[in-house]
């Protein structure tokens, strides 16, 4: 604020001058003018700025300085005006400009207008020397001498040329003749005795030099290199100390593509180059091969220093670890298995097909003698086939899609248990001789009386005489998924996956009685199997397999396959080994004596395993899956407890076609021959023989 005001002052002061000024003169004698002006104005400025603080101090200083400089010139000529250092504004409106030395008013001179002054300037060649003196209201003409002085001042020299500012100093005072020193004090003693401290310092130095602590000559140059490694014979000395040294990996050697002139196939095409642009920067190849026609056209590699630096960083910043690089033939990873020829016989090729069903065959079962095979399909029929000829002997229509069926294991009781929907039918197949037929009829008939009695109770199952075929129907509350017989042929179990506490039921055929021994299962039951020799009962839920002792009626073991969803279970005829198939295509082999964890997991199929089966006499087991294949394995169990079972994959059986995303739905072994039956979703049953 203050500063702008000061500037405004300047402008005001300049204004009155303008008429008297000529363009030529102006730039030349600007300084002169300023000095005078400030001289004249100084007092008023002071007054004006006194109350305003120090902000405009700088401007003031400048003005004062210039005022001081002009002092000498003012001394020479006495001013005409005598008003002193008052602001000239006070006289602005007056007729006079002040008073002369005698006290008379000095009247203002008539002002020339601009044209006059210009004309005067043109006429008079000396006009550029003229300066208007506001204070005295007159024009002053500067002499040549004065102009010279101004010029010198402008150049920053002394005003008068004859003055030498750097004249050598002449010492006019003559010291010699003066009788008295400047100080009258007596000379101290220390001027006459050697300094103790200096002496100490000297002694110090002398000693240091003697001792060799201070040396003045440059140290002697020793040869920089010598024979560092002498004889390499002593091995013990040549051991590196400290931790084990891990040498840095050597930089990768250049391949064909790094050549200055690689073959054409190493140079990426234009499209590939463009595709690099679309990649993320990390994925982009670091080096793009280029071809140069001749060696002289190869430029300097711009990244050489950077790459050297990166290598340095790798060497001292990268943690080093010893990694075992596996340099083996992948084929050597494959286990050494006994040759398949030694493991014969096993089912190898498809020998027979049983056609007749119109829907996917859900389940098959082979009669103990191995002469008959029964199959149940979703078209609601159960068919009985002769194994060796493939002749369809009988067809029952049960009305609902058959889930599962099983032959009675007793050869003299050719009864077929068929689960279809909520019902389980016990069908009289009508095989065997007359005596047997009679007995079966009796067995399947007698119970009808009892059924009426049992029907009144709140049992989960009601035993009813079948209307169409001669047999019994067990009415369940929920859908029955599997039916399995006990080896003695009297008991059989049914599983209802959604049956909660009544999921697993055990029925007695002779007494027409149903029991529910297992009340609590944590997960939905999948299937239940009897132990082939002992009174054990295997119930597989989706998560695990539970083993119950039926005689003590308690849980004795829980097998944990660690699979996502168990789909099927089969027990080795020896009774100590169990295989469990899962919906993720994996199969687990449990050795019951070994642990509750699987002895081996076999990731055989890419799709769900639908069923697994053991052979009764041969060391064979099989799995079938929705990927339309069945795997046959050799599974030898040794009587020696110390020897682990030997499992060898033998054969993949193809042949079925997929329908509705399902492949092979069931597989069973022939009880005596190494033959495998498979039931497919393509409504075909196949027999594979060796």
């Amino acid at each position: 604020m203050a500063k702008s005001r000061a500037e405004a002052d300047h402008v005001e002061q300049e204004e009155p001058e303008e008429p008297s000024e000529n363009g030529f003169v102006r730039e030349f004698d600007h300084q002169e003018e300023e000095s005078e002006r400030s001289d004249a104005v100084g007092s008023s400025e002071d007054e004006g700025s006194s109350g305003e603080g120090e902000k405009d101090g700088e401007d003031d200083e400048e003005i004062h300085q210039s005022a001081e400089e002009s002092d000498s010139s003012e001394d020479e000529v006495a001013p005409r005006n005598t008003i002193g250092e008052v602001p000239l504004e006070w006289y602005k409106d007056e007729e006079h400009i002040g008073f002369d030395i005698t006290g008379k008013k000095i009247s203002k001179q008539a002002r020339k207008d601009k044209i006059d002054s210009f004309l005067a300037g043109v006429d008079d060649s000396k006009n550029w020397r003229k300066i208007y003196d506001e204070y005295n209201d007159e024009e002053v003409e500067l002499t040549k001498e004065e102009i010279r002085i101004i010029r010198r001042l402008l150049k920053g020299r002394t005003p008068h040329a004859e003055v030498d500012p750097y004249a050598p100093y002449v010492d006019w005072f003559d010291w010699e003749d003066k009788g008295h020193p400047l100080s009258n004090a007596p000379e101290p003693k220390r001027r006459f005795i050697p300094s103790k401290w200096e002496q100490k310092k000297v002694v110090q130095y002398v000693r240091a030099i003697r001792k060799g602590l201070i040396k003045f000559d440059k140290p002697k140059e020793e040869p920089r290199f010598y024979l560092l490694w002498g004889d390499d014979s002593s091995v013990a000395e040549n051991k590196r100390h400290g931790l084990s040294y891990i040498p840095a990996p050597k930089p990768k050697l250049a391949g064909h593509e790094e050549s200055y002139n690689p073959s054409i196939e190493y140079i990426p095409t234009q499209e590939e180059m463009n595709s690099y642009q679309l990649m993320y920067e990390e994925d982009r190849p670091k080096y793009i091969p280029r071809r140069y026609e001749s060696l002289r056209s190869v430029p300097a590699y711009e990244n050489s220093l950077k790459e050297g630096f990166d290598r340095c960083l790798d060497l001292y910043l990268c943690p080093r670890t010893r990694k075992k690089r596996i340099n083996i033939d992948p084929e050597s990873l494959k286990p050494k298995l006994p040759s398949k020829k030694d493991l014969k016989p096993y089912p190898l090729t498809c020998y027979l097909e049983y056609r007749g069903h119109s829907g996917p065959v859900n389940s098959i079962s082979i009669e103990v003698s191995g002469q008959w095979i029964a199959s149940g399909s979703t078209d609601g029929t159960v068919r009985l086939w002769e194994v060796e000829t493939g002749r369809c002997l009988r067809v029952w229509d049960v009305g609902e899609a058959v889930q599962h069926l099983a032959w009675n294991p007793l050869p003299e009781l050719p009864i077929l248990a068929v689960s279809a929907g909520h019902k389980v039918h016990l069908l009289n197949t009508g095989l065997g001789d007359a005596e047997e037929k009679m007995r079966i009829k009796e067995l399947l008939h007698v119970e009808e009386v009892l059924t009426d009695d049992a029907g009144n109770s709140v049992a989960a199952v009601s035993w009813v005489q079948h209307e169409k075929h001669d047999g019994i129907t067990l009415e369940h509350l929920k859908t029955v998924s599997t039916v399995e017989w006990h080896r003695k042929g009297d008991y059989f179990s049914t599983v209802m996956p959604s049956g909660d506490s009544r999921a697993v039921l055990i029925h007695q055929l002779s007494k027409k009685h149903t029991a529910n021994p297992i009340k609590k299962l944590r997960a939905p039951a999948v299937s239940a199997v009897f132990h082939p020799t002992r009174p054990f009962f295997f119930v597989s839920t989706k998560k695990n397999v539970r083993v119950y002792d039926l005689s003590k009626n308690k849980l004795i073991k829980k097998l944990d396959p660690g699979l996502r969803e168990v789909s099927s279970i089969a027990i080795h005829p020896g009774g100590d080994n169990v295989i469990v198939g899962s919906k993720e295509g994996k199969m687990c082999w449990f050795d019951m004596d070994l642990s509750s964890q699987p002895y081996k997991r076999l990731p055989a199929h890419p799709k769900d395993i639908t069923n697994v089966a053991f052979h009764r006499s041969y060391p064979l087991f099989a799995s079938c899956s929705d990927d339309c294949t069945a795997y046959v394995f050799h599974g030898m169990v040794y009587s020696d407890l110390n020897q682990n079972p030997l499992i060898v994959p033998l054969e993949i059986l193809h042949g079925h076609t997929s329908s509705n995303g399902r492949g092979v739905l069931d597989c069973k072994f022939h009880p005596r021959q190494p033959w495998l039956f498979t039931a497919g979703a393509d409504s075909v049953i196949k027999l594979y023989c060796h």
Partner: protein
Amino acid sequence: MPKHYRPPGKKKEGNAAKYITRTKAVHHLQVSLPTFRKLCILKGIFPREPKKKVEGNHKTYYHTKDIAFVAHDPLVEKFRDIRAHKRKVKKALARKNRELADRLLNRQPTYKLDRLILERYPAFVDALRDLDDCLTMVHLFAALPAVGGERIQVERIHNCRRLSHEWQAYISQTHSLRKTFISVKGIYYQAEVEGQKITWLTPHALQQVLTDDVDFNVMLTFLEFYEALLGFVNFKLYHSINVKYPPLLDPQLEALAAELYALCRYVSAAPERQLGDSQAISSSENEQSEDKKVDAQTDESDLRLAQLQHQLPANEPGTLMHLVEDATGADDEDNETKECKNLFKKFKFFLSREVPRESLLFIIPAFGGVVSWEGDGSPFKESDEDITHQIVDRPTQGHMFLSREYVQPQWIYDCVNARTILPTEAYLVGRVPPAHLSPFVDNEAEGYVPEYAETIKRLQDAASKQVLPMPGIESGDLDDPQNLLAEGIIDRTEASEAAEKKRKLAMLEKQYHDELNMELQGITYSASLSNKNLQSSVEDVQEDAPADPEQMEKDTRDLSMVAMSRKKRRLYEAMQISKERKKANVNILKERKKKAEASKKE
């Protein structure tokens, strides 16, 4: 952390006690981070990967023993001394005590790395094993501009140049160079010294750019160690061939930037000097006879050079040099060295201005050739009648001598890699030379053999058998690479066709066998079932199981996969993946090649 001091609550074993983070290590050593870096670089200490990172995943861990190893090194104390000394000088200068400052500057504390080198490489072989990085770095710095005021001292660069030349002179004179490769990054060399394969990279002899994105402190620290290491290695190597180290060079040749040549001559001459006077007498006769010729030359420098040449008769083929080499070399040289030594034995080369002189001056003598170049100090002039090959790299050659062949520099490199003298037709002036292939690639392992590699292979076979490469093809045809290439293609196609036929035959045979088997089985079946008559409702499907070999293959693979343990299966799968990747790369190459050929035909 020292053993005796364990803060309460700290572990005394396990990863927590065994490993120490970098920050803690720096605090423990009481040095600054740059000094710590320097110590690590010089001592060769590197971070380790603990099994369990106790202090966090993103930290650098050093082994406590490594840090203790550094802590006990006198170098730490030395670095502290240097720091204190610098402060003293600064103080003296600030007090305007020029005298003291000068005295201090005269006796700066210095350190030597010989002890460290011996500690890191107790045996000479260890040092050779780790020499790759050292050589690459030294050669890189030797190629940097030796300009004052840059971040690198000029003396360092000159030292690097000298060391690299000394190394090259040794390799060249002992004929231990094995492979060379011109890449875009520079020229790779592989030498074999004491059974160790040493590979290094020299940048192209062009102006190198100093970039800003590198930390020169780190690089110079590495260089410091490498300079010392290479010096000692060179000393040992020169010692082993009875040459004094450091070599004294002819200043004139040095001035002409032909240090390598000067060194080579020095090296080859030295054993002779030690062998005694007997040869000197014979050489003196030579000298006298040639001195007369020399007199004619008025130029003083020429005179001196000529005299030098007499003193060091390296470049007079078939004189003393020969004797020396036969005397020293013949007994302990292996076959490969002999082969390398005799590759260019009969040839005399002349280098034009525009070819990479340093590289060729290094390579050609390493393989037994005699070489000269255009410029001052060269042993013989361009007009020499004995020159067999002139290396040029220009679009056209003006004046041509009929007695010699004009080839591009790539010919030398390809000959060296192939270890045979390749026909020069493809490398003549103005032609685009055939593809330059890397000698470091194992084509068979890679699964793809470039075309020119096959050509070279055939030539090699031909050379080793000393017969015509292919029956029915005349030598003119042989020399023409185009013909050869075409031949190669035909050959390959033929071979593939033959293979195809073979496979088909095998398949047919197999099928036949299968069917036979099937029939046999059928018979047995029918025999077993003879008493039962087959009914019409049954379709007797004598399915020829999985007949196609692919299915069989897949089955066997699947079966073996089932039998494998999980760990092995994973490993196997990973191997298969890498195999697939390699295959895909090869396929890309093949496709590109096919496309290129197709476009060429059009």
